[in-house]
């Protein structure tokens, strides 16, 4: 493939509190479709996403380069990146517990673009219905919906999504997967996901991390078909992939 990647990560290293968590991670995200980031618990998937949006903790140190088109991202503050169309759905949802659902959404509106409330509400009618409820009292799954809905309110050039289906009921998982699929038609997505069924359905490219390093990159469907490969990289036989 010779298409220009939308995002290229080169030799990304992250140290936090003296621990070398990422050790020279390099990969690219294609300008269309879903690129999935896989790996066991604690290999550094979340750390990678957070480093890209500039949310490494204060006691951390980031080296290497992350470029979106021709622009380097690492030196720019998070809010600018996001305003320029980098959407991020964090792992632990991070809804604002003290604010109502409507306020959470209102906060996510970005200047310059008209917020697509109808799109979000069509996807998650719960959010419309619970507009006046405090986000902190939402159920786990509802919070996840809010976290995704917040980002979909705006137009993005690239979406970083960390385990969006965690804690969602199977039916909603299917729905979210459908949404991401649709979104990915126009906006490239870098997705971290443990649910291999979702991966199978969505992913075009895959990057597998292991112990802070890239262990494998390539076509996601290939990966999931190769039993030996999945077993060695993900510890699962491909037969078990289908949940």
């Amino acid at each position, binding site marked *: 493939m010779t298409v220009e990647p939308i995002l290229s990560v080169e030799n990304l290293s992250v140290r936090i509190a003296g621990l070398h968590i990422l050790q020279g991670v390099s990969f690219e995200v294609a300008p269309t479709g879903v690129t999935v980031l896989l790996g066991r618990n604690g290999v550094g998937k979340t750390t990678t996403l957070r480093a890209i*949006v500039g*949310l490494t903790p204060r006691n951390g140190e980031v080296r290497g380069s992350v470029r979106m088109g021709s622009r380097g991202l690492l030196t720019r*503050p*998070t*809010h*600018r990146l*996001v*305003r320029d169309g980098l959407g*991020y759905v*964090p792992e632990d949802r*991070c809804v*604002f*517990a*003290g*604010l109502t659902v409507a*306020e*959470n959404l*209102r*906060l*996510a509106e*970005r200047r310059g673009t008209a917020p697509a409330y109808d799109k979000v509400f069509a996807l998650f009618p719960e959010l419309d219905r619970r507009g006046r409820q405090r986000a902190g009292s939402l159920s786990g799954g509802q919070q996840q919906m809010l976290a995704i809905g*917040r980002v979909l309110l*705006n137009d993005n050039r690239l979406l970083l999504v960390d385990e969006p289906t965690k804690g969602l009921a199977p039916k909603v998982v299917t729905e979210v997967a459908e949404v991401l699929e649709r979104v990915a038609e126009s906006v490239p997505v870098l997705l971290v996901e443990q649910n291999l069924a979702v991966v199978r359905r969505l992913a075009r490219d895959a990057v597998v991390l292991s112990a802070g390093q890239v262990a494998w990159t390539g076509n996601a469907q290939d990966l999931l078909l190769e039993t030996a490969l999945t077993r060695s990289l993900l510890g699962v036989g491909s037969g078990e992939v289908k949940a």
Partner: protein
Amino acid sequence: MSTVILLALTGLGLAALYFLVASGLSLVFGLADVLNFAHGLFLGVGAYATWWAADNLPGAGSTGFGFVVAVAFGVLAGALVAVLVELVLIRPLYSRTIEQVLVTVGLSLAGVALLQATWGADPRPFPRPAWSREVTSILGANVPNAGLLLIIAAVLVLGGLLAFLRFTRYGLIIRAGVENREMVTALGIDVRKAFTLVFAIGGAAAALAGALGGVYFGTVSPGQGGSLLIFAFIVVVIGGMGSVVGSAYAAVAVGLLQQFVNYYGTSGLGDLCVVGLLAVVLLLRPQGLAGKVAHA
């Protein structure tokens, strides 16, 4: 009867003063989650800047429009100092509450000492229009004009703050930012600016309280802010952190309670009652009168 009216109105004047001090404190405390012990310093800066301007600033003076200019200068100075403090000292420490307490405590010590080093420990007579020393007779009670001035100012400030919180996005941003600053930036918002703004407003409110407090007391001295601060804190807590309206209710309750108990009870009982009120309110409603989140 006239005694009751007199006590009620002067009590409201006192409440207004408490509210002016508490409003900024409450805003910064409730929204930015900074327990700002340096608030007394902003108060002092406002008072001294007004005092200085009345004598030295062209166009400013102690009467008429000149007085307004002097107060405006004081308010501006307070806001400016608050912004500086936020930018230089507080900004690197967000989400490290205890360190913030330490820095603001340090600042209040150093700042008050600096005021004292510059202008001396003794109270200075405060420039003020002659009418502010006089009284207005209301239903037979001689109510000091300075108290009435405070009441008017407090009502205006209350209205202004409510409008700010209700009609701008800043209230929202700041409330969210207190919960999780990172996530607010991850929504594409420069949360730092919003916090600086809150400090500016808090500083301006404190400075206004300092300037009008100067009118009310007739003097300005370095420690003045600190002694008001304790009651302001109590007001903020009784009212519920961050609730401006709650602070207003609490200020009225505290001011009237103090005034009436001091007259009808024995001396000092007023203060004890206020402390008792605080304890009772907190034990019954730990989140304060008006709930715990910053609902304008």
